[in-house]
């Protein structure tokens, strides 16, 4: 079972790179948004430094949405799910694995870029470590919740926008905690509460989202 | 004794009552119209199916 899981994980990460260019698309979108922020707000360093955490997290959330539409769609159309369902792995596990692959293939890369984005927007270099940790946690919850939205809208005609509408309200707490965490760090306030909340939210997502995604996949397959 | 003079808050108080009235009345009208239309459509189809 572990072997099958690992094989599926490897396959999915590989697929995200080879076909469709999901991560490249998301990274390009993320960096473009970052470039547009100073252009729309004006290049004053003080203004930028104050809004950098919030806008970075907003951009991270939006960029995480991008490749969700294809997360289950391809395998759903190819009938791969029907084959996988005949195997030992329950649909919940398949959902979890595919979301983890989405996280590793796209979310982690965006998370790795996050410190750089924040620094370019004017955050101090010392904040890099913390912003990386926070972005890793946040992007994990983004991928897991995104999986729920992607599975729910399977078989509907307007995938992309619908997923965004379903998923973004659930992205609100991590964005609040993540941006609040950076704001607290930059103003010298205690950070443990925001970091704890962010971690707790991601853990909750890890526990509950695969169940919901599995249920939605099951209903889509019947 | 009914007090309808809202003093300096006239916009806020009547605004909220007006908005509530508009929203609930239009929701009611829309629901009634939808109900009637659906009833008529269903009846027409039922009649059609009975006398082909």
């Amino acid at each position, binding site marked *: 079972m572990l072997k099958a899981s690992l094989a599926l994980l490897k396959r999915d990460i590989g697929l995200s790179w080879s076909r469709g260019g999901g991560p490249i698309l998301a990274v390009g979108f993320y960096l473009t948004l970052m470039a547009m922020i100073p252009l729309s707000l004006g290049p004053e360093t003080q203004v930028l430094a104050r809004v950098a955490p919030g806008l970075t997290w907003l951009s991270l959330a939006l960029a995480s949405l991008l490749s969700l539409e294809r997360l289950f769609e391809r395998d759903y159309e190819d009938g791969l799910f029907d084959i996988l369902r005949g195997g030992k792995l329950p649909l919940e596990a398949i959902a979890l694995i595919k979301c983890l692959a989405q996280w590793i293939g796209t979310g982690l890369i965006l998370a790795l870029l996050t410190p750089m984005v924040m620094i370019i927007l004017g955050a101090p270099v010392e904040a890099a470590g913390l912003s990386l940790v926070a972005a890793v946690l946040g992007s994990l919850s983004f991928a897991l919740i995104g999986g*729920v939205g992607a599975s*729910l*809208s*399977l*078989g*509907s*005609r*307007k995938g992309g926008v*619908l997923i965004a*509408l*379903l998923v*973004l*309200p*659930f992205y*609100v707490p991590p964005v609040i905690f993540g941006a609040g965490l950076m704001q607290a760090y930059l103003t010298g306030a205690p950070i443990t509460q925001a970091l704890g909340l962010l971690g707790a939210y991601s853990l909750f997502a890890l526990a*509950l989202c695969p169940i*919901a995604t599995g*249920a*939605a996949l099951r*209903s*889509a397959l*019947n | *004794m*009914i*007090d*309808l*003079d*809202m*003093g300096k*808050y006239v916009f*806020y*108080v009547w*605004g*909220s*009552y007006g*908005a*509530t009235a508009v*929203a*609930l009345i239009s*929701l*009611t009208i829309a*629901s*009634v119209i*939808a*109900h009637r239309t*659906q*009833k008529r*459509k*269903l009846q027409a*189809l*039922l009649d*059609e*199916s009975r006398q082909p």
Partner: protein
Amino acid sequence: MISWLANPERFSRIFTPIRPYVGVAAALMFMWGLYLCFASPEDYQQGDTVRIMYMHVPAAWMAMAVYLIMGIASFFGLIWRHSLADVAAKAAAPIGAAFTALSLLTGSLWGRPMWGTWWEWDGRMTSVLVLFLFYIGYMALHAAIEDETRAAKSTAILAMIGLVNLPVIKFSVDWWNTLHQGASVVRADGPSIAPDMLWPLLVMALAFKLLFVWLWLLRIDTELMARRYRALRARLSFAEEGN
């Protein structure tokens, strides 16, 4: 009991005759409530703006109650696969969305003179705004999936996930120190609100509830007829193709 009622025809037979009485009761309660709203005294601190409360608080209560009803109906629909549960949840969504929008709007109109701001990003307002987005998402998802049983299942899952927001709304005033006042009607030690204001509030709340029940029954009936219509049409065109 629930399974017994879940038969659409039995449901219509029982509730269609009741519906007009609910409507009349709602209208009478609205008349009495509106009279009380303006017959009640001004608040010594808030002046006339306290009358906004009689719209705002019932709308906010209903915004949450309707979502809870949707969640419960979705739960039954998912466990026992009653199509009536999905019809009930689907019919409730637009009404709940309207109440949510009203609670936000009247709250904004109350906040401006009292707090000096139209909008404050405090926990309660943010979480109610998210509730509104859930209603929109629910309706969008229902509209986007053509297959009825699949739409029912997907939206039921979404509605149940969204239930986590309700405790956040309820306790947001306790968790975060905000401009919003804490609970003053439903409290362990009895309501802290003056009886002169409690009465119009409770009557209006009952009027809102009755209006909801009436609209809900009406919309359930509409949806049941729509489904009968679609089923019949499909059967007719199938018969025609057969000929």
